[in-house]
């Protein structure tokens, strides 16, 4: 998968090593450890390796664009290939936190620019002129006399030259690739059904594996009977590993069928939890006093005591499964000499290391090839499925691919945990004087930067407290962890607060942001001017307040993942039920590297956010997830989808990510619009379940 296809490639930085003496000293390359990115063929065609995992966020297109821009080659001459796990040559090979472009922006451009300078230096040496007399553009080097050499003509000489330092990057005004609408580099393979994904990967002799896992959280395996499974055509072996049973077969269907015929006895070792129990526990935490304080400005207690009015509201969210369209799967071939891993993973380095540790092997024995992923959303940060594959391969001494059924995928999840927020604000003489946010969460609380998001810094008295309950249900990151519900809760709260204060809800935000301008508090994460910028633009682009009377608008603004976003949801009522017709979304993510991919991320985040706010919920009873497929779990579908109108703030600031930040505020925008339409405030997700339909019909 990492091969350069048709191209007879020449790796500028590493492939020359065996052939040339002295070898290029990679340690001298000062690209923040980035180096093995570029191959150039004799014809001047370029293969660029994309270092980070592709989960649909578009980095396999946008990261190579950064290199190609500074290398200065026509995009049509570029072939992109997925880089493999290579901790020596790549840094942060992670898909998570919307950080790939932000961290790649400087080093990837420097990689391209350094390569370009080496090509220029090689051409200059051949011509016997000074490099400063030469220029490079669009894959061609030109000297003062107008003579020209292609990159392919000099690549072999260039590759062994000393690596120049301090190369000059282009002025953004001169960008020819960055800022252009570039199609997904895998588009042809996707639309023709070529093998790209982990589930498509196969090897000679590979066994398909279906795994029986505990049906309820907190259970362990006591015994199992595999008599029937072994008689299924195609089943080759049944193995217990830890608390699980693996059925190996010559086809996926045989493995799944074999698993269904297993019978097993399980023992409940820790509490069999339920949603009812979680609700009670979390509300108990909010009512209690076992909080850890993450940020404290001034004295909220005093502000509340002196207030004319206090508004306090509690917001509740359920567990959510990730439901990547491609169910979890991974290939592993563990032999005495190596551990070969192939599949969809957001954290290749961490997963390879964990597998080496689990099998008590050296990390240097592990190779990992990342496939394109049929969605990630955080689920593929956790390499549990890859570890299963490695463990089964190690026991069976065969190449295997573990494949989750949809039921396995939803019931053996690492879920977005249920979280409840209690938010209170104090008003004195018509002014907002205090803000107190409390979080009660399953397993883990918000990470440390979040208490420094808006409205931190805008109020003299401000406090964030957190408490948690340790559950045996596995939980983890889910697209925009914590903020995916917090933004909805806070932005609903601000809407209600503005109403209570009898001030304009947009002006309330703008006024608060003025307090943050020029702050010396380095903990503050957001830029108040950029938040104000997206607010003003969304007001303009959404025709805020100027829509027909049957349209109800809700506003929300939020900062997370280094990106500033404002959204307005337009809803109408259809037989009393809210229908989201349109969302206007304004985004300030700095320079927009690829407007086509960027727009896809923005739209996807907004609709994903609406879908999960309106419909998403996983409940538990006796430790068992109560949904395990799409007949009992609702994901948003096309006929429930609004049109999303996307606007970017024009900017020359370094880019930030887009995989997550448009999702969190939209729940707030929708809740606020529903309130305008129905007079009903929504405090609990999913909205469609918790909207008292009777109260809004008619």
């Amino acid at each position, binding site marked *: 998968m990492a091969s350069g296809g048709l191209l007879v490639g020449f790796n500028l930085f590493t492939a020359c090593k065996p052939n040339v003496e002295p070898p290029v000293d990679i340690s001298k390359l000062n690209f923040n450890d980035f180096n093995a990115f570029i191959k150039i063929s004799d014809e001047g065609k370029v293969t660029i390796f994309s270092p980070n995992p592709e989960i649909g966020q578009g980095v396999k297109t946008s990261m190579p664009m950064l290199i190609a821009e500074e290398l200065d080659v026509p995009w049509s001459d570029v072939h992109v290939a997925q880089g493999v796990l290579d901790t020596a040559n790549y840094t942060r090979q992670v898909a998570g936190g919307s950080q790939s472009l932000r961290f790649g922006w400087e080093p990837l451009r420097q990689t391209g620019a350094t390569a370009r300078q080496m090509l220029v230096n090689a051409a200059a040496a051949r011509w016997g002129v000074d490099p400063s007399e030469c220029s490079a553009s669009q894959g061609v080097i030109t000297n003062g006399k107008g003579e020209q050499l292609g990159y392919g003509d000099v690549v072999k000489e260039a590759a062994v030259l000393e690596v120049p330092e301090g190369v000059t990057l282009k002025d953004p005004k001169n960008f020819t690739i960055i800022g252009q609408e570039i199609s997904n580099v895998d588009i042809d393979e996707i639309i023709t059904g070529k093998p790209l994904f982990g*589930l498509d990967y196969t090897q000679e002799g590979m066994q398909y594996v279906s795994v029986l896992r505990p049906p309820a959280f907190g259970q362990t395996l006591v015994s199992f009977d595999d008599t029937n499974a072994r008689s299924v055509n195609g089943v080759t072996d049944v193995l217990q590993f830890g608390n699980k049973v693996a059925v190996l077969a010559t086809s996926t269907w045989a493995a799944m069928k074999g698993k269904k015929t297993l019978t097993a006895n399980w023992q409940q070792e820790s509490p069999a939890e339920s949603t009812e129990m979680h609700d009670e526990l979390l509300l108990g935490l909010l009512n209690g006093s076992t909080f850890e304080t993450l940020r404290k400005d001034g004295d909220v207690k005093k502000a509340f005591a002196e207030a004319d009015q206090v508004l306090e509201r509690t917001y509740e969210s359920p567990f959510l499964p990730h439901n990547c369209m491609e169910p979890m799967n991974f290939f592993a071939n563990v032999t005495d000499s190596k551990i070969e891993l192939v599949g969809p993973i957001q954290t290749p380095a961490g997963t390879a290391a964990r597998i080496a540790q689990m099998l008590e092997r050296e990390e240097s024995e592990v190779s990992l090839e990342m496939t394109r992923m049929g969605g990630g959303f955080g689920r593929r940060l956790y390499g549990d499925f890859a570890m299963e594959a490695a463990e089964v391969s190690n026991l069976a001494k065969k190449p295997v691919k573990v494949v989750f059924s949809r039921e396995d995928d939803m019931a053996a999840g690492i879920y977005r945990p249920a979280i409840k927020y209690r938010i209170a604000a104090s008003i004195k003489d018509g002014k907002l004087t205090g803000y107190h946010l409390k979080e009660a969460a399953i397993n883990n609380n918000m990470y440390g930067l979040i208490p420094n998001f808006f409205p931190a810094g805008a109020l003299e008295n401000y406090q964030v407290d957190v408490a948690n309950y340790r559950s045996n249900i596995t939980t983890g990151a889910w697209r925009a962890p914590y903020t995916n519900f917090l933004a909805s809760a806070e932005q609903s709260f601000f809407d209600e607060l503005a109403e209570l204060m009898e001030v304009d809800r947009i002006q309330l935000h703008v006024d608060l942001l003025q307090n943050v301008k020029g702050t010396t508090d380095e903990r503050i994460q957001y830029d108040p001017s950029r938040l104000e910028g997206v607010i003003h633009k969304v007001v303009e682009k959404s025709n805020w307040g100027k829509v027909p009377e049957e349209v109800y608008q809700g506003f929300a603004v939020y900062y997370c993942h280094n990106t500033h976003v404002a959204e307005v949801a337009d809803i109408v009522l259809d037989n009393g039920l809210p229908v989201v017709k349109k969302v206007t979304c304004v985004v300030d993510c700095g320079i927009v590297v690829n407007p086509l991919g960027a727009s896809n991320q923005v739209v996807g985040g907004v609709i994903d956010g609406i879908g999960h706010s309106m419909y998403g919920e996983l409940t538990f009873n006796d430790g068992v997830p109560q949904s395990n497929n799409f007949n009992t779990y609702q994901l948003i579908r096309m006929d429930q989808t609004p049109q999303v109108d996307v606007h970017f703030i024009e900017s020359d600031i370094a880019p930030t990510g887009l995989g997550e930040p448009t999702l969190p505020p939209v729940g707030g925008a929708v809740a606020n619009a529903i309130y305008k339409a129905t007079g009903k405030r929504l405090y609990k997700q999913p909205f469609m379940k918790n909207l008292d339909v009777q109260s809004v019909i008619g």
Partner: protein
Amino acid sequence: MPTFQLKINGKSQTVEVDNDTPLLWVLRDHIELVGTKFGCGIGQCGACTIHVDGVATRSCLLKVSDASEKEITTIEGLSEYGTHPVQVAWKDIDVPQCGYCQAGQIMTASALLKSNPSPNETEIRDAMRGNICRCASYNSIEKAVQVAATKLS
């Protein structure tokens, strides 16, 4: 195990599998046509959509024993070089994000346009509602179906 004669993308194929094997897994594991995707196994997500005698069909619910004598078309056989108007529209609009569901979306859309070459918005939304896109590329899918319809009519 029984043997089945299948006609897939105009080619005759012989497979030896159990009667109850869904055509999805025959395509993926036995004929190496992996463009048809597994999503749910119960006909709810549309990732495995193929054409059976020209009709959009969930291959996860179609047993191989019921697939003989039928003209089966998968994403690989929709056009020789990816030039079906629906595929071209998908490329022009740059629809995919992760891309996993898109073969199913394209197969549903191409079957729709075959039976109804100029669908209105409601008809597109109703026809496509059986195909889940977890990345929520629905706006782009809708636009691409409209673009393909314009080209076809």
